[in-house]
């Protein structure tokens, strides 16, 4: 998992004291009839961010985006863009452009006409329109497709027309709804980097909706994880990955081993959790906020577990089991280990050596152990 690809401590406007957010979503709720599509969401998004809204299908991502674009009015709450309250401002008067999940290209217009459409509405002079359209089409590598109609393009080309059409207006804020949904994996990865490059080059603020966590990880400066209409966590990709604040987030992002247990020792410097599934207790070298006796989950990422044949020195943070499955993935291997309690644990180990004759293999008894800083304690 490439985590925090875009965040190496340089661009963090959300940490700057007194920084004005570009978008402020203030306790926004959207109901369709009795159904809560978006439930009391508050968010601050800063200029030049690439903010990802990540969540499963039907969790309200598109609805939130449509409220930013002005196609839906919030049932309650307020949205500010660049300090202006957006209540009652129609989509065509917002400084926002949107790239639709279905692209929504105009079928009766050529690629050029599609891209030029927004500029015509702004009464940009003809010569400038021609120049900007050409520039934009070259940028998305569709220079020679200008005269085609959308139905004569492939899915990936259509997606780039949609992107060009939204970007040519040089909006301050671009909303993208599953921009890479229709692309195959290879083109997708390629386009992800193109998207990031374009965004940095143009200095536009992007809000991207996706349900693909890998995509969110590689693209974004920050991620807002949504579940059932609510924002459950906001943070940089590495924060979300390393410090999930709930069982939902820990399980949604990447894979994780979840050990249920009870808090038996709760000191400011460390905690100890008794997990029936493990041989020893889980010892965590930082405090948590749950009360003693509470039912909690210790979440341990597969790559943070070490496999060994010898019994580890410490009696904590360890378990014994038998290797049931090995998946070789080139750069690393994933081991499925059945613990003595019957629970399956997932462990990934880097394949450092090319010829490792004494590699741990199928049906071999092994010990699992991990460092006290590795587990994250979350509650339901």
């Amino acid at each position, binding site marked *: 998992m490439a985590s925090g690809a875009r965040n190496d401590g340089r661009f963090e406007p959300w940490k700057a004291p007194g920084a004005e957010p570009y978008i402020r979503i203030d306790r926004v709720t959207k109901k369709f009839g009795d159904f809560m599509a978006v439930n009391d969401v508050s968010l601050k998004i800063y200029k030049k961010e690439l903010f990802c809204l990540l969540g499963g299908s039907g969790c309200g991502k598109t609805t939130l985006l449509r409220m930013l674009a002005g*196609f839906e009015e919030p049932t309650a709450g307020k949205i500010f863009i660049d300090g202006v309250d957006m209540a009652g401002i129609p989509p*065509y008067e917002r400084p926002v*452009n949107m790239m639709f999940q279905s692209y929504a*290209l105009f*079928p009766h217009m050529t690629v050029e006409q599609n891209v030029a459409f927004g500029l015509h509405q702004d009464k940009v002079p003809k010569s400038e329109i021609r120049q900007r359209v050409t520039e934009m089409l070259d940028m998305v590598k569709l220079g020679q497709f200008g005269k085609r109609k959308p139905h004569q393009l492939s899915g990936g080309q259509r997606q780039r027309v949609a992107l060009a059409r939204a970007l040519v207006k040089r909006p301050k804020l671009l909303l993208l709804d599953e921009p890479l949904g229709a692309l195959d994996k290879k083109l997708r990865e390629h386009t992800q980097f193109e998207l990031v490059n374009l965004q940095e080059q143009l200095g536009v603020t992007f809000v991207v909706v996706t349900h693909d966590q890998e995509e969110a990880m590689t693209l974004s400066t920050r991620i807002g994880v949504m579940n059932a209409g609510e924002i459950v966590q906001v943070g940089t990709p590495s924060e979300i990955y390393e410090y999930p604040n709930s069982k939902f987030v820990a399980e949604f992002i990447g894979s994780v081993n979840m050990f249920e247990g009870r808090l038996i020792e709760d000191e400011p410097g460390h905690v100890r959790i008794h997990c029936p599934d493990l041989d020893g207790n889980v010892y965590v070298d930082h405090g948590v906020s749950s009360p003693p006796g509470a039912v909690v989950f210790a979440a341990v990422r597969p790559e943070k577990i070490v496999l060994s044949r010898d019994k580890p020195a410490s009696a904590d943070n360890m378990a014994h089991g038998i290797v049931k499955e090995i998946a070789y993935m080139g750069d690393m291997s994933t081991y499925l280990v059945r613990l003595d309690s019957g629970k399956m644990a997932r462990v990934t180990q880097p394949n450092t050596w090319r010829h490792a004759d004494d590699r741990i293999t199928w049906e071999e008894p092994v010990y699992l152990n991990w460092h006290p800083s590795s587990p994250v304690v979350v509650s339901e």
Partner: protein
Amino acid sequence: MTGRAESPTSQRLSTGVQLILRVLHHFAPHRWTHARLLKWGVTGRTLVIAVPYLWLLLFFLVPFIIVLKIAFSETQIAMPPYQPLVHWVGDKAVNLTLNFGNFLFLLEDNLYWKAFLNSLKVAGISTFFCLLIGYPMAYAIARADSTKRNVLLMMVILPFWTSFLLRVYAWIGILKNNGLINNFLLWTGVIDQPIVMLQTDFAIYVGIVYSYLPFMILPLYSNLEKMDLTLLEAAQDLGCGPFKAFMKITLPLSMPGILAGSMLVFIPAVGEFVIPTLLGGPESLMIGKVLWTEFFNNRDWPVASAVAIALLIFLVVPIVYFQRVQARETGGGVHR
């Protein structure tokens, strides 16, 4: 949409159906027939296409040939009132007489030209008004929520359940000098003389627009209803107000519907006979009426047939040409 619970009876029924299906599947009479038909070069596809073709052949082409035949014959006072094209000379020889006189007669007498042009004018203006009234109605129905939509569509189709003739007669009652409108206006005191509406061109327009409106609304509705509404959102997102978005997106995309509706109104309106006869004045000159007069009053079947053939040619040839051009321009239809 939730799956509906099945009652025991329907379950028993469905097991029965399944049994029959299994038997059919085992003995497969369809497969046998299919193989036999394939041997003769008949596939399911040709069969499906053949049925409408057969229908057209029987009920369009055959009558058309009969009319064409009459158009080339000469009148006689007999039954039928025209001479046969083909008659036997002696035992073996056949004599074919083609009479172009009927068509030449149409050119000589400018009554026919005038009637034809006037029909085009009336049909054109009526089509325009049908479009003007029908488009907003079709638009409103297509954008109404789905529960109301069916009711509204029903109301458009409902008049067809009454006889066309009765509906035209009803308009006589509405338009005549002591009819509904005049009586109402006299009663309110807006006028003190009844306005003459019946037996005018105005009445013809009212009648045609009223009668043919559904033929405009239905194709327009089916076009507008199919439209992807996110296109309008995209237009708004790019800076278009709602009206401009309509002009630039909805209107051009509904062009096929406009054309289909206009054809469905224009073509029958050109040959319309009942409405000008009942609602129009005696001097209203329309080709349908001329045809009627030739056929029934003058009993000149050949000339009446020639009028019908000429009408067909003048209408069909430009329309076919027009559709060809259009198909070429759109490159075989708009795909999404």
